[in-house]
């Protein structure tokens, strides 16, 4: 069976490097979520299936959180933690990680955290309401108790030693 085909180029979408983190991010504390209700099908850089569910132009920053669970798995891992809000209430959050393969390649394993560990800082992209469950986000970075920092993109993870 033979087929004729013509190669067409149709680069009609604006090209930005989705793998790079946004240069300007607005940092918010605790439960403040900036939601840009952009439908996934018109977002020009939504080239990864799970990032369609998160607002990559916003950030949620949680400090002094307590780990509930830390799973490194495929297709996605998860960090579950509890944070105290401004009213003194403990609020449970879940932050999605990249795949277990990407996470482990970055030098990060599930054994590095245990329930009860305290994380100084967790930075996430907030979930888009209606698409994800409440208090759900995509993990952007987290600081370990020993000062090491893990940073994430949808397809990578990197561990930076606290002494570096």
């Amino acid at each position: 069976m033979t087929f004729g085909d013509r190669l067409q180029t149709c680069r009609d979408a604006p090209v930005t490097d989705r793998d790079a983190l946004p240069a300007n991010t607005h940092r918010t504390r605790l439960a403040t979520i900036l939601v840009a209700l952009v439908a996934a099908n018109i977002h020009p850089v939504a080239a990864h299936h799970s990032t369609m569910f998160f607002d990559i132009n916003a950030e949620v920053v949680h400090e002094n959180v307590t780990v509930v669970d830390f799973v490194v798995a495929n297709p996605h891992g998860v960090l579950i933690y509890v944070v105290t809000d401004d009213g003194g209430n403990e609020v449970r959050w879940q932050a999605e990680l990249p795949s277990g393969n990407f996470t482990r390649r970055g030098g990060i394993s599930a054994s590095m955290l245990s329930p009860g560990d305290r994380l100084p800082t967790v930075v996430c992209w907030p979930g888009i309401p209606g698409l994800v469950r409440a208090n759900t986000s995509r993990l952007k970075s987290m600081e370990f108790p020993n000062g090491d920092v893990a940073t994430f993109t949808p397809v990578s993870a990197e561990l930076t030693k606290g002494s570096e």
Partner: protein
Amino acid sequence: MNRKPKFSPAGFCAGLVLATGAGILCPVDAVRAQADFEGIWMHNVPLSTLARVSSELGLTRAGQADWDRYEPQDDPLFRCIMPGVPRGITDPYLLEIIQQEHQIVMLREYFHQVRRIYMDGREAPEHWPLSMSGYSTGRWEGETLVVTTTHLSPDNAMNIQGHPFSGDEHTYVIERYTRTGDELRMEAVVHDPAFYQEPHAIEFGWELAPDEEIWTYECDPRFGDFMIEADP
């Protein structure tokens, strides 16, 4: 099925060329020029270049209707179903290529995908089932590997964004792979006239990564869609 024909067209024509000096008597494929694609490859194209705005895809009415019904939380990857073709030909995981006389095997870390590209002129047997990876045959055009894939599943998507893919009997994918130094380039065209007004072009690339190792990819569906808001 004999995967290695007893009569080798390449050998026959090579001999004929030597005997007659008239290489033009032999079809180009028989005295085939090949490239070496073997090795482990890592993508070197930003995934953002794959993003497409759905309004500019040139969807047919049926394609638009299918897209309108799409729910991101229904992504089969959340249920550990492999991406296959065409969706998975641009995944960001490692790719290993093994070349044999009768087939080229593409091994992808992502979901342990094994894809056979038959190079011996065979066609899909009658009643070959549809599948996420389809049935692939290949040929050389000079040093370019041309892969044709049919028997594709309607459960698949065009790309990682979930854009529609009909998978009907008229769908097929043509991929062209070329190597320049330690870079491998793919130019693909997805033919899906039911859903797209024009063939859909996809480009991707890899660089040789001999020090990398293909990992296993154990997928746990418990961690697929646990964050996704279920329909009420």
